[in-house]
């Protein structure tokens, strides 16, 4: 509250380092922009501008599924204080539903829609048969966490049991490529990336400008306060699950199509980076998750210019650690911390 910030402000002589850190804390996005520009400059001079541009493009491709995965995860956490470890399996499930629908003879585009819708339906059903009943019984937070972790395993191995543990073709043409301004991108990759960016824009616009979006953000901030302003919280929780699941399904499909193959580990390999995106953006903040997803995606791809690509997941976490050291509440988390 005001008293405590008063005490902080009276720190008599901040050293130059502390002063620098405080500037970064106050203008996190500007500071981040400067850091990104400096890293880009260094990479561009060292590795060449064309390579940097290519890595950036790859980063945006990856950032798409991180961002779409992260926004659902962060909304569910914000609304229900539930760390949904099974979120990665929603991605896997979406990709497999695409393959299943495709195998039934539906065209790929229709199959993708089926994948998104069925995953949204799965998320909804889990709320009704699992999460709502355990919440009503006032199961503790640790138990919920373990329940989510357990659910992740159950889903992963159920998918593996039904569809087989081996790689399956996702059905898209992954050989055709396009060259734009000298940058290579797979044709499928280009299409799904544009779809992903459109989805991200839609989510951001929906959260900002629709009544439903504002209610979801209100719930993500405080469910009790939302209830006392008359919001039908049960309904918004259901909608949030559907959106979270649908976007996760879409993220899985966006990952699977250009990759050409899918296996039951798909979501598990991505979930840690998605968590990093959520935390970097500020837990519970949907815009933060979108930005965090892009940031993690680009950081990971840039890192492949100088280190072994198999280490790129660690780079995502290096970004996470750096952001948290300077801003424990994440990039967009400013306002939330003031309240309590």
């Amino acid at each position, binding site marked *: 509250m005001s008293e405590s910030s008063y005490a902080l402000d009276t720190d008599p002589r901040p050293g130059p380092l502390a002063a620098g850190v405080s500037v970064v804390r106050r203008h996190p996005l500007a500071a981040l922009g400067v850091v990104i520009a400096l890293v880009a400059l260094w990479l561009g001079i060292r590795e060449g501008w064309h390579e940097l541009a290519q890595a950036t493009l790859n980063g945006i491709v990856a950032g798409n599924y991180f961002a779409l995965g992260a926004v659902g995860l962060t909304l569910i956490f914000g609304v229900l204080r539930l760390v949904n470890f099974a979120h990665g399996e929603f991605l896997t499930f979406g990709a497999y539903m695409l393959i299943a629908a495709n195998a039934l003879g539906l065209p790929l585009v229709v199959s993708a829609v089926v994948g998104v819708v069925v995953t949204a339906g799965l998320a909804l059903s889990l709320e009704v048969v699992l999460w709502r009943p355990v919440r009503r019984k006032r199961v503790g937070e640790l138990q919920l966490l373990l329940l989510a972790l357990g659910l992740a395993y159950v889903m992963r191995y159920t998918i593996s049991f039904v569809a087989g543990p081996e790689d399956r073709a996702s059905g898209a043409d992954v050989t055709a490529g396009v060259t734009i301004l000298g940058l290579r991108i797979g044709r499928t990759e280009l299409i799904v990336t544009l779809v992903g960016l459109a989805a991200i824009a839609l989510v951001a616009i929906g959260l900002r400008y629709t009544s439903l979006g504002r*209610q979801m*953000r209100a719930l993500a901030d405080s469910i009790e306060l*939302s209830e*006392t302003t008359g919001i039908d919280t049960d309904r918004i929780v259901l909608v949030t699950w559907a959106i979270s699941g649908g976007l996760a399904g879409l993220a899985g499909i966006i990952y699977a199509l250009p990759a050409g193959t899918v296996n039951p580990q798909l979501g598990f390999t991505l979930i840690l980076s998605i968590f990093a995106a959520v935390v970097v953006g500020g837990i519970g903040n949907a815009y933060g998750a979108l930005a965090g997803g892009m940031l993690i995606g680009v950081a990971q791809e840039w890192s492949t210019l100088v280190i072994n690509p198999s280490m790129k997941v660690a780079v995502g976490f290096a970004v996470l650690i750096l952001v948290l050291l300077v801003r424990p509440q994440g990039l967009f988390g*400013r*306002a939330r911390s003031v309240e309590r």
Partner: protein
Amino acid sequence: MSTNGDPAPLLELDGVNTYYGQIHILEDSNLKVGEGELVCLLGGNASGKSTTLKTILGLVRPRTGVVRLAGEDVTGLPTAYRIRRGLAIVPENRRLFGPMTVLENLEMGAYLRPRADLKEEFERVYTLFPLLYERRSQLAGTLSGGEQQMVAMGRALMSKPKLLLMDEPSMGLAPILVERSFEIIQQVNQAGVAMLIVEQNANVSLSIADRGYVLSTGRIVLEGRAAELLANEGLRKAYLGR
């Protein structure tokens, strides 16, 4: 207003007993707020003030007893329904949606209202708090305590409530802002909104209230006209009796 006898009070707690698990929090609570009245509910820490509010809002359900809004039994009905019946709250610590703008916070108070009425509600709130218009695109979490109070109050008024609940409006505010807050409370009440103010600060709330109740360890130990309570020596005793 009503021609045949007393109209049903806006709010009535009738023999309410509320428990948290095995712990008996509210014991046989009886409380009324009439049309246009300004009533305060006084009590120290852990006297059951917050639980009373939560029971009124339906955030907790009483084990026995009845909560009525304008004569209608709402004991088993959800919070959202009660809000639709004309209840609104300015929560403790002026809780706002921190990551949302002032404008969005106000909108959250009014989203139950038809869109056509929104403009009118905004004008009413901006007339009462001109500063909020200037600050409308600022994030609520970045406001000062006094400004947050205005947003919380504005948000509650956006729903055009018949009865406004205020949870410790004086808490954590500088004395000058407390005075200003209570002026606004009085102003809103004079515009016809009934109020139930839950407070620790007995003097300032009784000075503007019509009637008051004093809660101590979950029981209403005193009630009466505000002027009588102000003069009552037992008040201090009951009050400090935890």
